[in-house]
């Protein structure tokens, strides 16, 4: 092939790629700008500090405090529950089993599969169980189902960090006569704490953003649940209902802004905490 033809191909490929990069950043900017432009007019102090009054969805007064608190409750409960499964699980497969153990590989594979299962399927499972035992949509059901969604996210992120801990550390600790429990929960856990916090906040972000599963199992109410067996509202669903209602669209976008701000806040917070906690970090 002639040299100029090859050069031409080279140049046009670069132009096309830069165009693609431009489109990607344009989409990214469009998401931010659309939420800002559409959300700002509907944003008010009432929106985040008041419970819905009658007719909020028809353009009446009140806010979505019930949904904000509900999302935080579901996200927090689910993350604590997921943490109490993921933390021992990941330490077990990394430290109690020998390297490359079948069980450890099976757990990782299962986590991969569970990670891919869509939220709506977890929700359907939850509904199936609830119908069988005659339970209605509740905060408790939402916490359990969202915890199931979070376990693979949290475990996989935590596993990546624990795997990076140098093996020499195990030998040094065990040769001092410490038990595996001491090694896992007092030495390694301390070394990977920043990674654990980041993983937990990642899962928390997924938890408060989840909509499909929560829609099926959480029910919905205009108040804040007084006990775990009451139904609970969440922010994504409140946004969905508001935007689907012609008179309340502006508030839907504003509530969307609140959700994005919450998620951005928690992801910045996780970075900050990660840095603060990294004083115990070993190796890199």
């Amino acid at each position, binding site marked *: 092939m002639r040299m100029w033809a090859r050069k031409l191909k080279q140049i046009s490929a*670069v132009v096309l790629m830069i165009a*693609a990069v431009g489109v990607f950043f344009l989409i990214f900017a469009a998401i931010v700008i659309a939420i800002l432009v559409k959300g700002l007019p509907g944003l008010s102090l009432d929106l985040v500090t008041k419970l819905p009054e009658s007719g909020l969805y028809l353009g009446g007064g009140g806010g979505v405090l019930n949904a904000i608190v509900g999302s935080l409750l579901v996200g927090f409960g689910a993350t604590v529950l997921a943490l109490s499964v993921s933390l021992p699980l990941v330490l077990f497969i990394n430290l109690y089993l020998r390297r490359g153990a079948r069980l450890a590989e099976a757990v990782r594979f299962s986590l991969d599969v569970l990670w891919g299962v869509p939220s709506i399927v977890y929700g359907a499972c939850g509904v199936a169980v609830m119908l069988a035992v005659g339970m209605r949509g509740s905060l408790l059901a939402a916490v359990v189902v969202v915890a199931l969604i979070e376990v693979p996210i949290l475990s996989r992120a935590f596993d990546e960090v624990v795997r990076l801990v140098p093996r020499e550390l195990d030998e040094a600790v065990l040769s001092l006569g410490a038990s595996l429990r001491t090694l896992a929960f007092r030495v390694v856990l301390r070394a990977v704490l920043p990674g654990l916090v980041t993983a937990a906040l990642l899962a928390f972000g997924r938890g408060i953003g989840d909509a499909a599963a929560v829609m099926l199992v959480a029910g919905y109410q205009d108040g804040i649940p007084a006990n775990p067996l009451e139904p609970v509202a969440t922010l994504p669903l409140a946004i969905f209902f508001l935007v689907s209602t012609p008179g309340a669209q502006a508030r839907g976008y504003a509530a969307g802004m609140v959700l994005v701000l919450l998620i951005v806040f928690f992801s910045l917070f996780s970075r900050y905490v990660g840095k603060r906690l990294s004083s115990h970090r070993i190796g890199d």
Partner: protein
Amino acid sequence: MPGRAALRRASFASPRSLLDSGERALLGTLACALVLLPFVIGGGLLMAARGLLATKTVAELFAPDSWNPMRGRITYLPFLIGTLWVTGLAVLIALPLSLAVAVYASEYAPRRFGAVLKPAVDVVAGLPSVIFGLWGVALIVPVTGYNILAAAFVLAVMIMPIIIQIAMEVFSAVPPSLREAAFALGATRFEVVNRVVLKKSRPGLVAASVLALARAFGETLAVMMVIGGAQKGRLPQGPLDQADTLPTLIANRYGEMSSVPLVSESLLGAAFILFLVVVGFTLVSRVVLARVKRGME
């Protein structure tokens, strides 16, 4: 690691070994339970839906019919076709764009570009689906209307981060020596990318797209917000038609689960189909990806 095994054996006789073995059994049970969980989910959904198979054959469940459980008419076909339209179009839109971005970032651009791109991709990947739905309602729907195309655009944006992230990993697994050899033969950068890097990463890129497809297949709320919905499960005629997908079928009708006969069984059956397809996709892509990484090391 003989060292740790030996150490463990040496402490076997100590008084605390009893406590240790109890704790080991407990943790082992937890791990086994997690391995069994996918089987429990799949098996449980199938069991819950088995009443449907007692009244309908599999062929009837995928026959061109309308959705009217009140009259005992149940078919998955319109929803399956809706899902295929939406996910297929989404991957068609997202794949070339994402690949171009990934190739540019890993083969052409200076390192600094990656430092800008990665956080942007992470942010988009971390946004909840309702935000993509909002974006779709605000910017896509005014142009396209509520239909399959709008849902495909929204989904395309949602899966772009997945494809970009995995594609960049796959590209970085291609040994630099291969690129250097091609450069040494006088190839231009485009030729190196086209004939060496892309060729070598093809299986990995297929896996990335399959994983993205799996993600799109199960997406619910964002799709629900822009796709419009089909009346009585009419078969979608084209990309400009309104439709329903398997996930939106479940999300729209779960309220009828305890009141209308067979709805519970048929919705849990839809969840089972979703589970099966998504798990299949995930398994295939993970196996291919693991093989690709091992083969290149």
